[in-house]
Structure formats: structure tokens, C-alpha cells
């Protein structure tokens, strides 16, 4: 492949690029869906191609193609240079990338059992077994279970001397039961191990074995039907304990996105929005209570935001984001860290935190979450519930909405339980809670310990134009929040 990368980088520089990089990417995916006893979808997919990114006359250009051949490399490189020239027609400043990046190396996801070596019969058999368990409870109208496998091989090279080869393997799976009450026209659903299809990890087939979908299926079916008969979540201000997967979503939306430095600098304004965490807040803004510590860590084994180097060739890092409640870090790129340094000087980090990730060969890298985590606290879950006189426990996301600066949010969960006198009580349905990000995290007074802490995978984070889907990780343990508005249903 070096022949192709050298060809593109040389031609780009000959045509006037002051910086160039190329990524050659081959992505294989396999998706299996079983619904109500039938294999409804089973596909094996492969996409390959390359993308060339250049800076010409201080402006960016990018072109990509699925056809990996020498003459196409020439055409695409020339097009990238032409596009950069067009960008320069209306530029107001020059792209600055800071110190050169010239790492050489390889990275591979450690995998115990290659998911492509497991037979389709075993995979569909497992899902059909889970499907049967989901439908064991009368009232389950739709049983759905799925597996997803992903392998991406990518080669990155830049005009500064970097040459990196990486293989990322991901494995995901999940089950979902939908119960319908035709009399009242009501629909409820329960999922395992996470909602919206699956949890996903940078592991092999061993991740699916650990989920043990069939043994959880009967319980998920029963809970979906039980929700039809449950009381609705009351409306009011109360103490809220969030379970681990809902907390992963809370971290993703209210911490992960607002710390993206491209949002902060307005380059996502037209689509996803901007951020309330503006540069003057860096290092001093009280984001949460003193027990709240958050990190962006691209080195955690199993996390979907784990890699060797990002798509600018910057090494994976662990970046502090919130320390003892104070906002202290961003997700950054080479260009945005230079912009931050212009504002903050030496108070800003010296180099990119390594968060540039592209969704395949045909997309440019943009700032994406790695593994953005709420660090564990000191409580056991049982002690946390026992210490809560009156409140609600909510778990597993059902709906999520947040404003374009990431302040006002309203989230709903699949399931909730009343807490009275330090004990879990009746099941509640249609639970929602709402708040403003800093006030919410400021009300956090207890976080469970490392024994309860797990990294969850979010394989569906959308951002950018043209649209890109990123796979991000979030480590969380259950946590408690005081004085939260719950039960907004409209």
C-alpha cells in the first residue's frame, strides 16, 4: 500500500499542497437480525476505498474514491488539490496544524475469538434461542434480537512521514421485547444489554458469549409486559438514581458533545450546534459537584473509542475533562488545539488530544468522542439505594433530546422503580427527567465504585455533513442526583 500512499502524497505536494494525508480503508461488516422467530436480515458487507486530504494555499480539500488504482489515485489527488484551491477563494485565515506528526506503527484490537470464524449457524441459533425466550411471555408482540460484527483495516500516511496501520474489530449484540396492549393502544419495550439494538465492544465473539443473550431473554419479555400494567412515573422534583446505561447516554450527550472543540469553535453550528463550554470556561468553570471526575480515554481495552492513533496520526491518550467538578479538557484536533492556544496561550494543551476520527474512506476526520467516562466513586449500589429515602431509579434510554449548546436536556428511560425508605419499590413506566447540564451534574452526590463501573458502546453517534456515524465508548457506574424534575410527558 505504501506505493499508493507515496504516489498520492508526492503528487499532492507537486501540485502545491503544503500538507497531505491519505487513508486507505477496508471495512467489513456482518449484521444479523431475528424478529419473531424469523431471520429477517442477514448481510455481509464490504466497502473499501481511499481519501486524500490536502492543505493548499492555507485551505482544506478532500476527495475520495472506491476505486483503488494508480490512475484513480492521481485523479482523486488532483481533485483534492483543486477543491482546496476553491476553498481558498473565500478563506479568512490559514490552516495551522502545529508540530509535525510522523509516527510509524501498527495497532490491532486484541481478539480472543474472531467473530468471522464463528459459523452462521451458531450465530443464528443463538438469536433464535433468545427470540424464543423473549416470546415466552404472552403479550410480547415483537421480539427482536441482533448481532453486528465490524472489522476495519486502515492505512494512514501523511506528508510529514507518518505511516500507520490499524485493525479495529468490534462485536455487538442485543435483544428487545415490545409489548402491546391493543385495548389501550399502549406500547412498551425492554432491551438488554442496551437499548436501540445492542451494546458493542472492541472484542471478538467472546463479547457475545459474555452477554449470554438467551438467559436474559425471558426476563426482558416479562418486564416489557409488566410495564403495560405499571403505574406511570409521577411528576415532580425528587432524588434520581441513574443506572449505568442511561448514565452512559447522559455522559455522551451532556459531556461528550459539548467538549468537542470543533463545536466550540462553531464549525458544527449549522448542523449539530455549538457548545456552552466556551474557552474562557477552561480550567475554572464548575461543571459538576466535587465528586464528578470525567476523562476522554482512547486507551481503554474494549472501548469503542479505543485505537492506536487517531485519523490524523496522533497517538491515543487519556485526557482529563472534568477534575473534581471543574471543567479542564476538550476533545481536540491538530488544527483546533492551535486555535485554542491562540486564545489561551500556554494554559492550553501543547498538542492535539487525538480525537480526529473518520467514518470510513469517504469521510474526512472530524472531532469525535473517544471513550468519555464518568470515573468511579466510592459507593456500592446497595448502599446507595439504602441511603436514599425517597426517589426514583431510572435505567436504559428510551428517548433523548438536548439543545444545540448541550444545556437543556430531557431524557426518557425504558424502566424505572420507585425508591422508598431505602428500598426499591413499584415498577414505573414512561419515566422522563429534565434539567440543565451544569445544575444536573452539580447535584450529583454519590457515584458507585469501580466494581459497578463498565464501558458501554454507542455505535450510532451521528455528526457532520455529509453525515458520519462514530462508535464511542462510555464508562459509567450508577450515580445519584438530587432535586431533579421527573415525569414530563406532555
Amino acid at each position, binding site marked *: 500500500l505504501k506505493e499508493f500512499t507515496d504516489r498520492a502524497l508526492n503528487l499532492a505536494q507537486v501540485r502545491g499542497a503544503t500538507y497531505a494525508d491519505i487513508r486507505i480503508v477496508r471495512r467489513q461488516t456482518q449484521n444479523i*437480525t431475528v*424478529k419473531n422467530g*424469523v*431471520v429477517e*436480515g442477514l*448481510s*455481509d*458487507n*464490504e*466497502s*473499501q476505498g481511499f481519501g486524500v486530504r490536502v492543505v493548499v494555499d492555507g*485551505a482544506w*480539500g*478532500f*476527495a*475520495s474514491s*472506491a*476505486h483503488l488504482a494508480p490512475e484513480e489515485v492521481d485523479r*482523486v489527488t488532483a481533485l483534492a488539490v483543486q*477543491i*482546496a484551491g*476553491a*476553498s481558498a*477563494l*473565500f478563506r*479568512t485565515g490559514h490552516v495551522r496544524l502545529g508540530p509535525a506528526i510522523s509516527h510509524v506503527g501498527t495497532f490491532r484490537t486484541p481478539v480472543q475469538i474472531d467473530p468471522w470464524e464463528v*459459523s*452462521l449457524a451458531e450465530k*443464528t441459533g443463538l438469536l*433464535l434461542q433468545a427470540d424464543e425466550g423473549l416470546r415466552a411471555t404472552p403479550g410480547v*408482540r*415483537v421480539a427482536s434480537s441482533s448481532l453486528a460484527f465490524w472489522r476495519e483495516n486502515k492505512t494512514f500516511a501523511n506528508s510529514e512521514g507518518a505511516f500507520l496501520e490499524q485493525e479495529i474489530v468490534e462485536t455487538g449484540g442485543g435483544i428487545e421485547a*415490545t409489548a*402491546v396492549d*391493543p385495548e389501550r393502544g399502549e406500547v412498551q419495550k425492554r432491551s438488554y444489554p442496551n437499548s436501540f439494538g445492542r451494546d458493542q465492544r472492541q472484542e471478538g465473539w467472546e463479547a457475545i458469549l459474555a452477554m449470554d443473550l438467551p438467559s436474559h431473554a425471558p426476563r426482558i419479555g416479562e418486564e416489557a409486559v409488566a410495564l403495560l400494567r405499571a403505574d406511570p412515573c409521577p411528576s415532580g422534583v425528587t432524588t434520581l438514581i441513574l443506572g449505568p446505561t442511561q448514565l452512559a447516554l447522559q455522559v455522551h450527550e451532556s459531556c461528550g458533545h459539548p467538549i468537542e472543540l470543533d463545536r466550540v*469553535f*462553531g*464549525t458544527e*453550528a*449549522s*448542523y449539530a*450546534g455549538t457548545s456552552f463550554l466556551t474557552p474562557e470556561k477552561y480550567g475554572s468553570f464548575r461543571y459538576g459537584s466535587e465528586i464528578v471526575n470525567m476523562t476522554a480515554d482512547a486507551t481503554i481495552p474494549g472501548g469503542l473509542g479505543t485505537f492506536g492513533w487517531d485519523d490524523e496520526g496522533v497517538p491515543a491518550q487519556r485526557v482529563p475533562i472534568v477534575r473534581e467538578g471543574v471543567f479542564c479538557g476538550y476533545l481536540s484536533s491538530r488544527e483546533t488545539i492551535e486555535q485554542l492556544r491562540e486564545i489561551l496561550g500556554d494554559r492550553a494543551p501543547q498538542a492535539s488530544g487525538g480525537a480526529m476520527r473518520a467514518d470510513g474512506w*469517504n469521510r*474526512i476526520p472530524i472531532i469525535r468522542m473517544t471513550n468519555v467516562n464518568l470515573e468511579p466513586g466510592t459507593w456500592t449500589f446497595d448502599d446507595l439505594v439504602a441511603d436514599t429515602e425517597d426517589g426514583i431509579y431510572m435505567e436504559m434510554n*428510551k*428517548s433523548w*433530546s*438536548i*439543545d*444545540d*449548546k448541550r*444545556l*437543556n436536556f430531557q431524557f426518557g428511560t425504558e424502566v424505572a422503580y420507585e425508591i422508598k425508605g431505602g428500598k426499591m419499590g413499584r415498577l414505573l413506566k414512561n419515566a422522563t427527567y429534565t434539567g*440543565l447540564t451544569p445544575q444536573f451534574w452539580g447535584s450529583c452526590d454519590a457515584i458507585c465504585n469501580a466494581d459497578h463501573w463498565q464501558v458501554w458502546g454507542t455505535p450510532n453517534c451521528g455528526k457532520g*455533513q*455529509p*453525515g458520519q456515524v462514530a462508535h464511542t465508548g462510555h464508562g459509567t457506574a450508577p450515580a445519584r442526583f438530587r432535586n431533579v424534575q421527573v415525569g*414530563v*410527558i*406532555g
Partner: protein
Amino acid sequence: MVGEQRIRAISDGILALSSADQTEVVVLANDSALTRFANSTIHQNVAETDCEVRIRVVLGQRIGVATTNNLEEVALAEALNKALAIARLQPENPDFQSLPGPLPIPEVRSFSEATAHCTPETRARGAGAICLLAREAGVVASGALTTGVLEIAVANSLGTFAYFATTQADVNTVIMSDDSAGYAEALALDVNHLDFEAVGREAIEKCQRSRGPRPLEPGEYPVILEPYAVQDFLQMMTYTGFSAVALQEGRSFMVGKIGQPIVDERISIWDDGLDPDGLPLPFDFEGVPKQRVDLIDKGVARGVVYDSYRAGKEEGRRSTGHALPAPNTFGPFPLNLFFAGGDASLDDMIRSTERGLYVTRFHYTRPVEPKQVIVTGMTRDGTFLIEKGEITYPVKNLRFTQGYLEALNHVERIGREPRLLSAMGGLACQRVPALQLSRFRFTGATEF
């Protein structure tokens, strides 16, 4: 562009090689470019050339799908073999009946040479026009301008071959000041039909009028919704109820309501892939010609859209031409929606409002309860208070939690100028009017 001749050769080659009982080849060739601007300058500028070949094989009632974008003969044969291996190794799907046979495809045109051959410089000048207007006005522009050609072909072993090439050009912009924002967008087949300066002026004017927003107590207010906001009604009703899969699984708000009034009698919503007022697409991803489907007619629930698999689950039902590419567990989907216009202007609506809110656009909306289409989301890019028939001042953004069906039962007026808007990241389009509703529930507020 790959071209019909080469695509036909690719699909013929795969069909000839296949040992399956039935075989389908879907080719999606994409040549697109996007110029993105922010801080009133171009910061991302990208182009893509791709061609995906999607092979579905049927062995009895066992189905396998494989895709590749490598067009070499060896790679295509490998993809076919993968699809066959998948089909062999899975249980039969008793609900599957057959791939659709060949049907006459209506002739529609949806192609612009100017869009197909749009240069990076033309796109830069379009984006630049908006950036320059913003700089002159002392505000900041961000947005994206896309041009592209999409070729779609469907061939199958029953004799179907359908090919269509379409172009699309769209531009959207958010204009921001220190404390306000405005939005505008436009969509056309022909990039020369996009008036970049008009789009820029609309958003700049909205941004300027939004300056100095004041807080407003959440609560129930009459509202005027611009088409950008009304589009969300179509998107949410599509996700929760307009597909046969939602109806058959009992999840749709249409369950048990077909033939009954569900919204105001002035509301009509339909899907029509052949209407030149949209962006026509004459057949679906199974090669079935698009039919007009009346979803809601004069307030009465009339039906949902079908693909061949979902139609096969109902006696006597046929596909309406709304399949997505296989394997499609998401179900059939309406890609060309129309919301009937009325006779009111935005000025009529404002003049007739004693006290209410004017909303430009919604942001990050999500269904809270699908059966009643209860949705939560935020206002964005220009929200105003109306008092005594006039817009009095901008207000800070509000969160709403509102049943959309309920809202469509409180219609005061419907706009007379529906706008064509892009949906699903450019895969779909919707023509929608403005709406005046007598009540809409705002449940929270934010700080800007």
C-alpha cells in the same frame, strides 16, 4: 457517473453467474460533493465517488445479502458467493414469498446537467455568496452546499431491470450573532435554481430580528410554525406510523384507525414519488414502480406504505413501491412526502394571533410516546413572541413536549406556500406548508 450500460453489464454478469432460485442486484452509484462553511469561511470541502453493488439471493425461502463496492469481476463473484453461503446456512423465512416480477416503470425526469457537472469553484462561489453577505452584516455564517448525482438500478432474475439517474443540489445555512441565530435552506434538482443570496438574506434577517432574546415562561401557547418546523411532524409520523411494519406490529398510531378521522379535516398527507413538485424517483429498491399513497386524506387515516415482503403478510396486498435496500428490517418507507397547503400567508397567521409564539425550526426532536406521537425537542434559530397581531420580541429557546396528532387537531390555518425540503440526509424530500395551531405545549426553557 457509471452509466446505465455498465451497470446493466454488472448486473447481467451477476445474474448469469448466480445459482440461486431468485437473485436481485441493486446498484447505487454516487458522485457527490459538499462544501461546508463556518465562521463565514469554507472549512470543509469534500468529494466522493462510490458504487455499491448489493446482491440478494433466494434459495427456497432462505435469503442472503452481500454488498461490495469493488467492481472487479472476482470481487463481484465473491460477493455473490457470500450471499449464497449466507442463504444456505440460515433457516427458511416462511413469510417471504418472492422477489417482485418486472413491472412497467413510469417515465419521470429528475436530472440536471448543471448539477451533475458542478465544479468546486461553483460550489465555493455559492457558499462564498452567503459568507460575504454575513460578513457585510456583521454576523457569522455556517452551512453546507451539496451537489450530487445518484444512479439507482435494480435488476432481478425474474426480468426486472430499472435504471434511474437523479441529481440534487441543496444549501442550508445558520447565521449567528453573539446572542441570536437564523436559518434558511433550499433544495432543487438544478444547482442553478438555488438562489444563494436569497437563502443568506432570509437567515441573516431572522438572525438580526432574534437579537436580544428574552426569557419566556414555558406553558401552553398558540404557535405559528414555519415549514422547517412542520417538517418534523412528517418525519416523526413517518418513523412512528406511516410504514406497514409499524402497523403490522401494532406500534403505529394508525392501528385500528384506518378509515377514521385522526386529525383536522383540512390535513392531507400523501407520498408520491412521481410528482415533479418533489424530487421524483420512479421505482423503489426492489424495482417496483412508485404509487401515490394517501396516508391521511382530509383528516382521515387512509393507509400506509408497503414493500413486497410486508405486502406478502396481508392477503391480497401488493407493494406500493416503498422498499428500502435489502435486507431491510426497518420496513417500507415513504421518501417523497407531501403535506397539502392551505390558503393563509404567514402574515395572515401573525395578524390573527392575539398572543402566541412564532417558531422557525425544531432541534433534536425525539418521540417520547410513539402511539400518540408525543415528541420532545427544542426550538432553534429564531423564536418570537407575537402580541396583538405583531411579532413583538425574540424569546430564548424553549423545550416542547407535545403530541403531534393532538396538535394537528388544533389547526387554525395552513400556509399557502409549501416548501420543498430535504430529509433523511438527502435521501428523501418533503413538501410542507407553515401551520398555525391554537395550542402547543412548551415544557422547559434554556439559557439562550
